[in-house]
């Protein structure tokens, strides 16, 4: 019995340590959840006059800290800090701007609608319908004809996925590198590079860093649904099966 008591004691101490660690982890998780809005919200069409659906962390609009009440227009600049993101609507566009991003919007001349999205750096998911506009990054210019897209940009390369719809992809430094993409469901992600040989600055890419659930969310903010019915879980991180 003494032997069992010793083992029991060891296991009891181990259990206490595990429970303490679990309590600390749960505390951290709860704080994060509270900071982000504990239960989340059901995404639906934003009422007129409301631009922001959600803000996490540090988000600036035209150099000022954004709030839920901030109005975002088609000529504004949006910046997100580390660990931050913003989901917002501008006209007929709904966007999810991830952390460490710098987005400058330019309106069309004589029209208060977005004509150009300049993604200096960062990552953006954007949906729109019935409008033509362009996305410009340091290495690419992409013509959009009302669709869903995901873009990641830095000084060296651009990642671009036509989630659905039609786009015209051009490398900024290479007129020979251009491609039209017609996609139903993330059919042809691309890398657009800046310093490769002529005609070789557009390359196939894997699917990365965005999900169908996110597309459904931003479409819902405009009162629409994406052209697919089933979200595909192969675009999310692998999970153990239920």
């Amino acid at each position, binding site marked *: 019995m003494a032997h*069992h008591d010793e083992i*029991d004691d060891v*296991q009891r101490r181990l259990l206490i340590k*595990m429970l303490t660690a*679990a309590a600390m*982890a749960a505390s951290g*998780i709860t704080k*994060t*959840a509270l900071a*982000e*809005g504990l*239960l*989340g*919200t*059901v*995404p639906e069409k934003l009422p007129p006059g409301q631009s922001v659906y*959600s803000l*996490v962390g540090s988000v600036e609009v035209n150099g000022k800290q954004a709030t839920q009440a901030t109005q975002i227009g088609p000529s504004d600049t949006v910046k997100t800090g580390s*660990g931050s*993101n913003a989901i917002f609507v501008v006209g007929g566009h709904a966007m999810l701007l991830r952390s460490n991003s710098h987005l400058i919007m330019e309106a069309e001349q004589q029209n208060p609608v977005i004509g150009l999205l300049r993604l200096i750096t960062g990552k953006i998911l954007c949906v729109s319908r019935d409008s033509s506009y362009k996305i410009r990054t340091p290495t690419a210019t992409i013509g959009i004809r009302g669709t869903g897209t995901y873009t990641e940009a830095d000084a060296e390369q651009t990642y671009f996925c036509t989630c659905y719809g039609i786009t015209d992809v051009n490398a900024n430094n290479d007129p020979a590198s251009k491609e039209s993409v017609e996609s139903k469901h993330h059919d042809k992600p691309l890398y657009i590079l800046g310093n490769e040989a002529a005609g070789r600055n557009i390359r196939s890419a894997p699917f*990365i860093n965005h999900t169908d*659930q996110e597309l*459904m*969310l931003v*479409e*819902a903010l405009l009162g629409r*649904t*994406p*052209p*697919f*019915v*089933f979200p*595909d879980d*192969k675009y999310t*991180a*692998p*999970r*153990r*099966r*239920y």
Partner: protein
Amino acid sequence: MRRHQFRPRCAGYRRDSITRQEAQISLCRPYSVLLSPQRQKQSSFSRLCITALLSMLSVFAVHVRAQGLDGLSIMLDGAYTHDYNLTNASAWDDKRSDSAANFNLDVGKTLALSEHTRLALHGLLDTQVFANYEGLDRLSLDVEGEFMYRASGEFSTPTFGIVSGLGRDEFRSDLRKNDHYFVGITWRQPVTDRINLYAALKDNVSHSDNNVFNGSYRSAQMNLDYGFSNSHTLYLGTEYRDGYLVSSSGPDLVYHNVAAAWMKDDIFTGVDGLTDYRVAARTWLMRLGYNVPLAGKSSIDISWRVARSTSDLAPDPVASSIRYVGNQLSIDYLAGF
């Protein structure tokens, strides 16, 4: 008076080690009791499952013939699991602990049947290797199919499904080998931009060369996923099972009042060997887990599982039902391709 232990029957998902161990206990034929109506029920149930799977595989074969094997999804799962009460025993003398390594290969193919329906097929190869109790080492092969319906692409639209699967468990010990089947209905519901629900009702059956494992149980399952903005996921799952379980204990007469059959276990042997009993019982399973995505479509998953079983019958009129509680910690590395 001895305390007792229960082991929920094994069926369905192969990674479920708490339930897995029940399939690793078996009874000798001389002690087994099995009524013919149950065998008849299992036989018709097997036909139902096999018919459903064959129908799904036929659709799959037609699709593959038309479109080839493009779009296969492959997931590898390597896990370390430590069970602090491997035998799920209440009595201290009956407790054993061990660590196990798991390797799982899941090959999936989703077929779009129409705009609103699709068929998800999975082939699963699963191995489990124990550090000490080598007799529990296992190799499993399963196939599953789920027919799903979703009315629209709106965010909050639920997805309904009919799911069926069958498989084979091969253990080092012949006594533990079994075939298993299940059929059920599923429901997936996005609740908010952070919360997703999954629920399922299933009927599970397994066959082995001994009667104790020729059992069945019905299960109701609910899982809640909570997503953080950094793509981490906290999940809580619970499952209720009602049916026959295999319970293990040191030799104990009180079990004879509630068990349909019993035999000496062939893994936990020796002077303090255990006896396995086939008992009607209810089981609650709970799992709390946290999933952290990593670069390159991979993730780390940490989970804690608890199982609690209670026998339907008490050993005698003045005694309470027999109960057991077991818990388990798992760490998985998952990679998708």
